[in-house]
């Protein structure tokens, strides 16, 4: 995914009418369409300027909400639901398989910068636990085999939209 240029970023802000009420919509859209999955300083400044907010306010928001990131993210961040319905229905298995297969502990990127996995609270897919969420896509009813398959498919670039 190519990074957004200034005009594209401005278009996203204008789509939301430069409305400070919709700052989260704007920041999420900018982040999900960014190359490295985070809001860089330049983008934060742009949002502050166009929404007539202070940069401090924008950063207060960026650091408060869990989905928003201020640092570059690996290509695929595998989010594993850690809330009780998932955790006790295979969630721990998912964490073990990821640790064994990727060879890194939780919250640490792999050396090639391709993967990282972390625990997140409920994504509302409790009826298909255990789950991994990547961006907006939920992979449910996972088994050890299907997780390894998923990682292989991601490496092979079978999920272009993620």
């Amino acid at each position, binding site marked *: 995914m190519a990074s957004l240029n200034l005009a594209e970023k401005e278009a996203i802000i204008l789509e939301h009418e430069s409305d*400070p*009420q*919709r*700052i*989260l*919509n704007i*920041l*999420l859209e900018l982040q*999900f369409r960014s190359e490295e999955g985070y809001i860089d300083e330049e983008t934060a400044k742009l949002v502050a300027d166009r*929404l007539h*907010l202070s940069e401090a*306010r924008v950063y*207060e*928001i960026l650091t*408060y*909400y*869990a*989905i*928003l990131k201020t640092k570059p993210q690996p290509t695929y961040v595998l989010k594993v639901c*850690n*809330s*009780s*319905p998932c*955790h*006790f*229905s295979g969630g721990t298995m998912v964490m073990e398989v990821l640790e064994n297969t990727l060879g890194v502990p939780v919250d640490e990127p792999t050396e090639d910068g391709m993967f990282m996995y972390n625990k*997140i*609270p*409920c*994504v*509302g*897919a*409790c*009826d*298909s*636990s255990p789950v991994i*969420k990547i961006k*907006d896509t939920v992979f449910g009813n996972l088994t050890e085999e299907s997780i390894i398959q998923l990682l292989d498919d991601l490496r092979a670039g079978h999920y272009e939209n993620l």
Partner: protein
Amino acid sequence: MLERNQPVLLERVYNMTNAVDVEEYKKFKGFEGLANAISMDNEAILDELDIAHLRGRGGAAYPLGKKWRHMYHSKGTPKYIVCNADEGEPGTFKDKALLEKDPLSVIEGMLIAGYLFKAQTGYIYMRGEYRQIQKIFQQAIDNATKAGYLGENILGIQGFNFKILVISGAGAYVCGENSALLNSIEGKTGRPRVKPPHLADVGLYLKPTLVNNVESYAGIPVILREGGQAFLDLGSEDGGGTKLVCLSGHIKNRGLFEVNLGTPLYELIFSEKYGGGSSTSNPLKFIHFGGQSGPIGAVDELEDCIYSYEGLWDKGLSVGSGAVVVMDNQVSMIDYLVNVAEFFVHESCGKCTPCRLGTTRLMELLKKFQEKRAQIGDIERLEKMMTHVTHLSACGLGQSVANSMKSGLKLYPEEFLAGIGKEVRKLEEVSW
């Protein structure tokens, strides 16, 4: 007249082929509730809502009729209509189904509120995890606007103007708390406000604001279409209607079910129509009701329990959001509660000390039991800390953190005792 056992809220979810199409929505009795509302006196609308006895479906179970009456009599303009779609209670995925597969019913509910309170602006605050559904909902809004159900002079009624804005959350559980949600809409960080004042008097931008859950709004058109009594008859006397229940955990038929309030709990858990019993080969041990903030019940002690507001209150339990998380006998209560505590440590917003520090202290204490290094006196310490967090926290999040822990300790004291290390001696209190 509505038949019990017939889906009321999920009928369109199951049967519509295009969830955002206004014409198809109307084929399934869409906008009939609104049509009735505009032909009625305002007082008559409020009376129907009182008779229906719909309790708030977000979890607080506050009678919706009372909330609306309060809002109706609150002074100040403009008034705002807000829908809380920040569904974040673990084990809950009911609002998701309505937002994605029947968004127009939520819009109709909000629209009726807009008409009654002469509000011109509505907001729906939807959790960031549901970004794709936000787009679907926006489409439903756009279609309703094109069809003349949103916008200006709706249905040709002069001055009946109403629009709805979709506001995204971005991953903060506490924004499900209504005042935190309003702060988040105002573009601030989503931390709760000190209450009172009630949001119906001082809400969004300090104006009177109605905040209801998605499922509550979806129930409004049903009440005004079929009548308050018909809605009440779907449930039980202490709370009318059907409830969307989310079954998850170690249960065979995980998923979303529409259940008449007043259904026996065992039917919900064990009958093939609903849960179908254990999904593992092990017997079921306990049930966590209403999300992480709810209480826990032991399956063996709930044989005669009725799934209704009073039926659960009688057992010290609650309906909450409608989450029903079932665990089998392989799960230790302590392990479970450590997981719950970790959730709250992560989600406490940090504004008030009892919750910010209390959640961490609770987690540390529970981990001592988990690692079998608790000391004599730690049970008492845990109890004190639970009381502390419950009574001193500023908002509903902190006040309900200990619900599960209190019931867990009461139901399975032997598991806590087993967590006390053999070699440790009782600590003597040092007098000052």
